[in-house]
């Protein structure tokens, strides 16, 4: 047993964990902004996939990874705008609209990928993001290689957490966004445009979900496959609940989740436990459900989440 533990918990394991956590941090913080404004963005799974696809294609043809990231962001914002049109402007069911956005984005991703790349015998790939070492800091034993030899996107993701906390809790804009999610009528009386705030929350969510998808194809896998997201988006919905709609706790949830995911990958590879690999793949989903069961009773979602705002109705 001790041997297994020492085999698994090496520096490389934690480096992998931080890398695995990155897309979850992006997408979870994204979802958080939408939900704090009062919109559950179930388009997340499809938006991540579509962002991964446009990000990959752009990077493939332009040879610029950052242009790919930009394309993924814009893709996410485009689909988030449609989500806003359905749920904010038209006040339609957020559940069904979100599923619609996911189905539509998934369809787009498949359709355009096939249109652009056809059915090649070898998977088109790109040169993935290289890790960027932070001078001096990387010298710190243990922490250095784990935290400071990551890709630029990972640094961005972790800088995003304090930034999100600051935006949400220390700025007038954040107060407005949260008020719109808690009590839209009060916000409206105070002269805050409920729909403008909700669109902003959604646009941020779409941009970050797009980046999250792009990260997977530009760092983790360096190629686009149809199953590249495979449920990661849905897990982020759970992470927001787990994090009680706060950026720090949600990011902590993403880390914890990444720990489990990295662990299942290691166990899968180490063959110390003889189990079909599907059992390991299943583990994150089962554990997410278990965690949701433990925290949901005391979870307090933004009061106006799922409720469309219409000025004339009170």
């Amino acid at each position, binding site marked *: 047993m001790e041997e297994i533990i020492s085999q698994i918990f090496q520096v490389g394991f934690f480096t992998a964990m931080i890398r695995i956590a990155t897309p979850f941090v992006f997408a979870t913080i994204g979802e958080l902004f939408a939900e704090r404004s009062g919109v559950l963005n179930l388009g997340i799974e499809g938006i991540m996939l579509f962002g991964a696809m446009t990000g990959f294609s752009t990077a493939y043809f332009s040879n610029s990874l950052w242009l790919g990231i930009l394309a993924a962001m814009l893709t996410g914002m485009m689909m988030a705008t449609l989500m806003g049109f*359905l749920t904010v402007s038209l006040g339609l069911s957020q*559940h069904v609209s979100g599923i*619609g956005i996911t189905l539509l*984005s998934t369809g787009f991703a498949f359709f355009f990928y096939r249109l652009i790349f056809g059915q090649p015998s070898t998977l088109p790939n790109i040169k993935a993001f290289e890790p960027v070492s932070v001078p001096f800091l990387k010298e710190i034993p243990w922490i250095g290689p784990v935290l400071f030899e990551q890709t630029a996107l990972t640094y961005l993701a972790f800088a995003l957490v304090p930034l999100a906390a600051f935006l949400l809790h220390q700025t007038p804009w954040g107060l407005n966004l949260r008020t719109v999610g808690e009590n839209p009528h009060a916000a409206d009386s105070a002269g805050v445009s409920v729909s403008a705030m909700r669109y902003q929350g959604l646009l941020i969510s779409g941009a970050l979900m797009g980046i999250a998808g792009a990260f997977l194809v530009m760092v983790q896998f360096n190629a686009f496959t149809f199953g590249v997201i495979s449920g990661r988006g849905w897990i982020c919905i759970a992470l927001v609940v787990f994090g009680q709609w706060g950026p720090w706790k949600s990011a902590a949830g993403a880390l914890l989740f990444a720990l489990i995911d990295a662990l299942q990958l290691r166990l899968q590879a180490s063959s110390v436990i003889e189990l079909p690999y599907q059992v390991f793949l299943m583990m994150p*989903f089962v554990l997410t459900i278990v965690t949701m069961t433990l925290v949901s009773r005391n979870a307090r979602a933004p009061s106006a989440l799922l409720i469309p705002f219409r000025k004339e109705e009170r």
Partner: protein
Amino acid sequence: MAFRLELREQTPVWFNIVLPLSAVLATLLLCSGLVALAGANVFHAYSELFLSAVSSRFNLVETFVKASPLIFTGLAVAVAFRAKFWNIGAEGQLLSGAMAAAYIGGIESLPSFSLVLLMIAASALAGAGWALLPAILRTRFKVDDVVTTLLLNFVMFYVMTALLDGPWKDPLSGYPDSPDIRMDAEFPILLRATRLHLGVLLSLLAAPMIWWLIRRTTLGFSISAVGENPSASAYGGIPITRVLIYTALISGGLAGLAGAGEVGGLHFQVMAGISPGYGYTGIVIAMLARLNPIGVVPAALFFAVVVTGAEAMSRATGVPVFLADVIQGTALVTMLIAQLFTTYRIRTLTTQG
């Protein structure tokens, strides 16, 4: 000229037909842009998409065969959404039903006459069981049902593939497939020289039965009441928890039956690709049918045509087969927008104060 949205008191019956039709038309119009982008002639592509399904008697029957699992998942979602039990898990419930049916159909010791009946019952139970879990989590622990039903789809998929790769793998097959079910467990074919099997008939019978359940029984009334106004239902003495649990059982059972038809009537085994997303298409179908069980049948037939026709279209014109997926997503979005006309009417205001 100005417009104003007004609340509508009642929706005319013809809305049930006109709204889905307009949504479908709008969808085809929007998607024609993609067809053109793919460099194909829109009329040629659409005629391939729709005409291959009705071009021969065999293809017409085949459309019904393809529609059968979609009718079941469409009904499953329609029942669940009526109670606002957000069952996005018909996919996993279908897999669970398919596995149950294949398991029963392979037991050597069962008497021949009972096989088909037992397979049907087992698949419904397995689907219902897999839907019961998220229902309990929602009613007991307040866990959001959208997330759990979605996550459980992945869990069931991995359970299935783990079994197919391991203990349940057909030793005679090089693929991760389950062994074939017994010959006498195969569903009877109802029309000679076609694949029209018992499951198709069951799905067509299920639609009016569910309609009757929703419209004519106390439980059906409660299901709709809980969905429309849970607090008033509770005040009126409807046991909400129990109604939600029953809804989940019915919904999951219907999705499970979709699996029985696919195993007993078509594939005679379980394999990883047994459902190309029938559970998710069921959501689009239920919405297009405005959650009306009878409406599920034409909506499912439409998507059966689209899904099968997409391959013919792709072969003939080179338009990616995934146009079918875009059509599904677009149809759901346009139908949602069309639904607005049921709650609101647009009144044009003539220019004066």
